[in-house]
């Protein structure tokens, strides 16, 4: 029968199409008691301490690892964790002594070698670790991580293991607050298992923190359980944490509303209006170590000639920060009045109002200053940013409106939206911008140094505007040599005042960390990196 043959061929073609798709599936594990279900995003890089530089991978590291120091979630102070003490007499040679009896969750001891090996691994060029520049001030870094070509050594000469509990570090130059930087996750110790079978370790990471990985399905979820053998002071207060990858933060929020999720650490912008009525006091909105600025291309003569500092200041004064943070961000951003973050606290170097009049909205004065400085280059200014996240398009439009209204010369300020972050990064890293551009900065550790040196010092690793100022550089170097923390902070602030004079970057606002949680959990707080402090969460 003809019809039957046709049908046979049709079925055949379908089966070809279906052949590749074995129907996957699996069983959902029943929710155990005391487990926190938390939203997650797919980490950008494989989860390794020296290769993770974003919040999603950082969450896992925070659960799995404890470094020499750890920042107190409230005060931001670096407190000894695995380290018993870190001594120095000259701010350049440090002796690190570890606490006794600490182990990784696979039973290996945490020794001086665990740190030295991990740091050497992180610094070595062959391992292509994103965070390798963090080891750059250790003596011998240039041998394992040359600017070009192959490594000349396997290990850094500045790291020496003395005995099981002690190692010494020699820095290239004096850096008094260096021990305070060691709370950053790139400085975590690694067990030998990491080096022996790297692939297996990546599938199921092993650390020395309060949790262990029970199962990890890349791209969808990670189940972490409290580790009974953990001996540190911050033992987990819950049975474990399930991190679930969501395609979208709106979806995660919906699941929180429906009771399928306990913690969302990124409240979507369009829910901000409802969040207080939805969650009441189960909504957290607090400053994080993030500042958004608009950077001027100081490598472009038109923006850098004498007198232009007045124009740059004038532009800063033309921006109505209060209005924009209220209207667009529903107060999840705070108008900036310096170049650091309130999460540093006064002791750490945050000084409210350091920027002074230059960061206060004053349209008349703005107009006057810009005219005095010779006007905008070519009579125009164009703002550039990626627009794929963070409502960047919205605030850029608002900032331009604010500038245009203040100057009253028509649409002199325009917006240049860039589709993806990757494209935007390439543009600003190529140093070919002709107008101001957005720059977001999340500090790696709660130190004022981290807000200033990488961004504004000559040759700074993220000095995208190529701002160069001898006086500024001198003050930063002095501050780094200072042995007294308070005196160091004062020097850094002195340097920061030069930024207020020169205005190489306009501080816009401090970005807050936000989170919402269900009524099943309590004692939720965010640390200064806007990561939830999971180990303190209690499940009812």
């Amino acid at each position, binding site marked *: 029968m003809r019809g039957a043959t046709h049908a046979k061929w049709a079925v055949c073609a379908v089966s070809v199409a279906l052949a590749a798709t074995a129907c996957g599936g699996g069983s959902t594990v029943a929710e155990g008691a005391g487990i926190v279900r938390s939203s997650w995003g797919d980490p950008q890089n494989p989860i390794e301490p020296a290769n993770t*530089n974003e919040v999603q991978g950082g969450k896992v590291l925070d659960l799995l690892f404890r470094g020499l120091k750890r920042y107190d979630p409230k005060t931001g102070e670096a407190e000894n964790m695995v380290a018993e003490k870190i001594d120095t007499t000259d701010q350049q040679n440090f002796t690190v002594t570890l606490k006794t009896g600490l182990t990784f969750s696979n039973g290996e001891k945490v020794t001086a070698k665990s740190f030295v090996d991990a740091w050497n691994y992180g610094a070595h060029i062959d391992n292509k670790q994103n965070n390798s520049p963090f080891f750059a001030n250790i003596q011998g870094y240039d041998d394992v991580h040359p600017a070009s070509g192959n490594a000349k050594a396997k290990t850094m000469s500045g790291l020496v293991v003395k005995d099981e509990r002690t190692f010494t570090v020699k820095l290239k130059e004096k850096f008094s607050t260096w021990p305070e930087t060691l709370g950053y996750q790139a400085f975590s110790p690694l067990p030998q298992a990491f080096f022996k079978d790297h692939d297996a370790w990546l599938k199921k990471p092993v650390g020395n923190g309060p949790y262990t990985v029970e199962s990890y399905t890349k*791209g969808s979820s990670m189940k972490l359980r409290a580790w009974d053998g953990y001996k540190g002071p911050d033992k987990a207060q819950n049975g474990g944490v399930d991190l679930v990858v969501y395609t979208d933060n709106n979806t995660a929020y919906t*699941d929180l509303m429906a009771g399928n999720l306990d913690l969302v650490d990124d409240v979507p912008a369009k829910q901000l209006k409802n969040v207080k009525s939805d969650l009441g006091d189960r909504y957290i909105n607090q400053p994080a170590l993030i500042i958004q600025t608009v950077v001027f291309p100081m490598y472009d003569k038109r923006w850098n000639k004498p007198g232009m500092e007045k124009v740059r200041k004038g532009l800063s004064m033309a921006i109505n920060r209060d209005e924009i943070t209220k209207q667009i961000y529903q107060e999840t951003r705070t108008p900036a009045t310096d170049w650091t973050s309130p999460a540093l606290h006064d002791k750490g170097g945050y000084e409210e109002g350091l920027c002074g009049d230059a960061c206060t909205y004053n349209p008349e004065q703005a107009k006057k200053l810009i005219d005095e400085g010779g006007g905008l280059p070519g009579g125009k200014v164009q703002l550039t940013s990626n627009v794929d996240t963070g409502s960047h398009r919205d605030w850029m439009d608002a900032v331009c409106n604010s500038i245009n209204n203040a100057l009253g010369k028509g649409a002199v300020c325009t917006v240049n939206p860039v589709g993806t972050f990757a494209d935007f*990064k390439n543009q600003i890293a190529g140093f070919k911008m002709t107008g101001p551009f957005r720059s977001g900065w999340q500090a790696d550790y709660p130190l004022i140094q981290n807000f200033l040196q990488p961004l504004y010092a000559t040759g700074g690793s*993220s000095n995208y505007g190529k701002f160069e100022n001898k006086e500024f550089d001198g003050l930063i170097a002095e501050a780094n040599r200072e042995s007294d923390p308070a005196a160091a902070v004062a020097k850094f602030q002195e340097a920061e005042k030069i930024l207020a004079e020169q205005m190489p970057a306009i501080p816009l606002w401090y970005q807050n960390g936000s989170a919402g949680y269900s009524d099943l959990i309590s004692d939720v707080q965010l640390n200064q990196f806007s990561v939830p402090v999971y180990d303190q969460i209690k499940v009812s």
Partner: protein
Amino acid sequence: MGRYVIRRLLQMIPVFIGSTFLIFVMVYALGDPVAALFGDKAPDPATAARIRKELYLDQPLWKQYLHYMGQIFQGDFGTAFNGQKVTELLASAYPVTLRLTLVAVVIELVVGITLGVVSGLRRGRTVDTSVLVLTLVVISVPTFVSGYVLQFLFGVKWAVIRPTVSPEAPFSELLLPGTVLALVSLAYVTRLTRTSIAENVRADYLRTAVAKGLPRRRIITRHLLRNSLIPVITFIGTDIGALMGGAIVTEKIFNIHGVGYQIYQGILRNNAPTVVGFVTILVIVFLLANLLVDLLYAVLDPRIRYA
């Protein structure tokens, strides 16, 4: 017939090569992905250079493409930046999206054709008018509106289902997303069937069948429906491809880790292997679906034959 199928399958080879090349060039045009891997920080030049070298990004475009194709023929589709093999991603995402598409297509077929037949047979009456108005409403509501509204109503307000889909994505959880995905096409299927039925109801062969005294049920299913389904099948065939690749919105709303989500991630991160791998498979799905449609024509209408 067999030779026809083989010829069609062979024709897919140049299409496959051409489409992979075009997609490769397009992703390449998005720019260098390495700088974005470093977040807000400026990329460390030495590390960035090593990563570029490893990913073959320091080579000219044509060499990159040849290298990529060479790897594909060894079964290596490359690696996403998070260290996952693209083949792994394909194996986890395609079954999910396929299940979602299957749910959507079944809903489209069953509901769409039934409504179409009912309204086509009762042209101009109340049933017909209400179906027409209803489909008009459905067509005019964008997917993200219907998606969020239905998700909120069923998932949060009445709490009858889980608002989001778990990573395993079993059929039961895909019913609502599948319905949302099917809605717009459903309206088209209904309208196509209705027109086709209304037209064929007046055909000569149908009058003959009635005159022969065949039961009404047999007339409708064997004679009327079979001939009226050709445009509908054509539509569904192309729709399968569109549903699989175009489910980005639905997948985002319902947290489905399928093809649309992976392609979106790949584009955001400028990861060429992910995007090219996924789109290539989509191209193959399109081609196979079209072949299937052409073969089904012959099943439905014996006058059509292939040599």
